[in-house]
Structure formats: structure tokens, C-alpha cells
């Protein structure tokens, strides 16, 4: 499986070489000027995202830092033990859609406590790898182009995350055993 890692590592250098070379020698694009033109848009786009992301991350931060999240975790605990969902991994399900850095830190804490090759380690690896930070992606992508009303996008994102978590749980249990 080492080679898969290599592909991923080589991908970006390959793109950085291939795109300008192809453009310059096969299409006679003035590459440096072209780069400059495109990259000019980067800064205003990043600035445009700031207010949206501040709004979202303030709410996420209040939710996490005040212990409100802990309260909801405790609330759901009886239900989870009823369906034999591994309790220790549940904070990730709540954290993953709202905070990328927070969920990664949680995965690290599981690795530290149980090791990456334990059942829990594999489970949180799969959960983290198969989902994305829905609220962040929504805020950044829609914020960058000034979309205010997101229609049904949040629902789809959160339900897909949920599907990813349940699927991870079942798959990891089947593949690696509990």
C-alpha cells in the first residue's frame, strides 16, 4: 500500500511541472503573465470569506468551549449504548461536521490513548477520512461567491456525514473485527 502514498505525494509536484510546461510548449501560453492574472483573484476571495467564516466559527467555538457539546454528548449516551455504537468515538460524530481542526485533535487523542491500530483507532481513522467538515466547506464555498441562502445543502451535507459514520462503524467492525 506504500505506493498509494507515493502517488499522493507526487501529485502536486507533477501538476506544478506539467501544467506550465504543457501550456508554454504545446499551447504557447505566456505562463507567468497567465499565472499573475489568475492569482490576483486569490486575495480578494480569501478576504471575502472572512466575515462568513467568523460568523460560523464564533458559533462553533461558543458551542464547544462552554461545555454545551459535552451536555449533548451525555444526552445521547444511553441511546448509543442501546445500539452498541462505540461510545468513545461519538464525540467525533458531533465534532466532524462543525470543526476540522477540532475533529483532527480528537482523532489524535484516540490515537494517543488507544493506539492507531486498535479498533477505536481504525474506526476514527475511517470516520475522519470518509467525511468532511460540512459547515466549513459550506461557509467557504458559498461565502466566496456571496451566497446567503443555501437551500437544502446543509441537510444533504449533514445526512451524508451521518451515513458516513454509520457506514464506517459497520465496515470497520466487519473488516477488522471489534
Amino acid at each position, binding site marked *: 500500500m506504500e505506493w498509494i502514498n507515493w502517488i*499522493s505525494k507526487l501529485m502536486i509536484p507533477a501538476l506544478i511541472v506539467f501544467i506550465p510546461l504543457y501550456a508554454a510548449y504545446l499551447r504557447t501560453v505566456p505562463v507567468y503573465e497567465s499565472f499573475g492574472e489568475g492569482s490576483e483573484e486569490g486575495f480578494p476571495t480569501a478576504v471575502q470569506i472572512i466575515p462568513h467564516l467568523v460568523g460560523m466559527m464564533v458559533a462553533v467555538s461558543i*458551542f464547544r468551549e462552554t461545555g454545551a457539546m459535552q451536555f449533548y454528548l451525555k444526552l445521547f449516551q444511553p441511546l448509543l449504548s442501546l445500539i452498541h455504537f462505540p461510545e468513545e468515538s461519538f464525540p467525533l460524530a458531533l465534532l466532524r461536521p462543525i470543526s476540522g481542526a477540532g475533529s483532527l485533535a480528537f482523532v489524535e487523542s484516540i490515537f494517543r490513548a488507544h493506539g492507531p491500530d486498535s479498533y477505536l483507532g481504525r474506526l476514527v481513522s475511517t470516520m*475522519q477520512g470518509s467525511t468532511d467538515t460540512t459547515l466549513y466547506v459550506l461557509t467557504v464555498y458559498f461565502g466566496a461567491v456571496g451566497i446567503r441562502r443555501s437551500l437544502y445543502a446543509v441537510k444533504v451535507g449533514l445526512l451524508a456525514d451521518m451515513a458516513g459514520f454509520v457506514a464506517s462503524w459497520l465496515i470497520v467492525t466487519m473488516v477488522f473485527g471489534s
Partner: protein
Amino acid sequence: MVNHIWLWMILSGVVAAVVQGRVDLVTQAALTGAKEAVAVCIGLISILVFWMGMMRIAQDAGLLEKLARLLRPAVRFLFPSVPPDHPAMGYILSNISANMFGLGNAATPMGIKAMEELQKLNPDPKTASPAMCTLLALNTSGFTLIPTTIIGLRMKYGSADPAEIIGSTLLATMISSLVAILLDRWFRSRYFRSRAE
């Protein structure tokens, strides 16, 4: 719905702080949240500037068009409202490919470029178009062939086989992406029906 989630996170946070008799936690959390958000955007500047420059070269060289032509049937199925020759298609495909190979850094600028192109087709610039929702669904479901971040983290913590979760992750992400696409379709048809009435 995002309004409800937002309000609910703030409200339950304030209630939790009040119950503990520590209302100051709210102020602190709000300020750290705002600071973190700005820091994330500052971090995004370099990535956006660099990749948007590269993407412009790729576009000027006709590479994005080529990519779009290569995978046209798949995107036409997912984005029936986007004209097949529209530049949005090339960006959408490069965004999906970057996600697939675990190039999170490159995927975001490409996704934003795709959104900008979709915005040009959008009759109401304040409301997301169905095509935008589909693109978002593909991105929030986290479809990836190689979960690079997680593999790196497993290595750091001394895993005997850091890449062993690739198979299980691939299967799980296929399921979550499939659910995302199906739900998106379902909500989309409901949306069109409600607008037709």
C-alpha cells in the same frame, strides 16, 4: 436550516455557560472563534493565490476543457443544468479529482472557481442554485481515494500499517457520497416542484 443550527449552537452555549455560572466563557469563546476564523482565512490566502494562478494557466492552455470532455457523461448526469461546454465543468472536474487524490489544499481553490462559474449561470446571486448544491454535496461528503491527512497522522503515532484503513475509508466514503448524491437529487426535485406550484 443553517440559521437554526447557528442559533442553536450559540443559545445552547450561552445556557450551558449560565448554568455553570461562568458567563465569561461565552465572551472568551466568541473572541477565540473569531480569531481562529481570521487565521484560517489568512492561511487560505497563500493557497488561493497560488492555485488560482496555476488554474488560470491550465484554463488558458485548454487543459480544463480537456478534462471536462474526458469525463463528460458523469458530470452531465450530476449537473444537468450546466451547459456541457461551460467553463464551470472543467473546474468542477478538477475539484473532484483533487479531492479524490487527497489534495485538500488544491481542491478548495478549484471548488471556489467552480462556484464562481456556477454563480454566472445563477439567476439569483444571493440564493444557491441546484447545481451549486450538488457541487457542495460532493465536497461535504468528503469523497476521496487517499485519505492523506489520516495516513500521515497514523504514521506519526507509530501505526504498524498506516495505509490499512484505505479500503474501509474508500467503502465508507463511497456510501456517504452516494447518499449525498441521492439526497441531493431528491431535494432538488422537491425544490423544483415547490417552485413550479
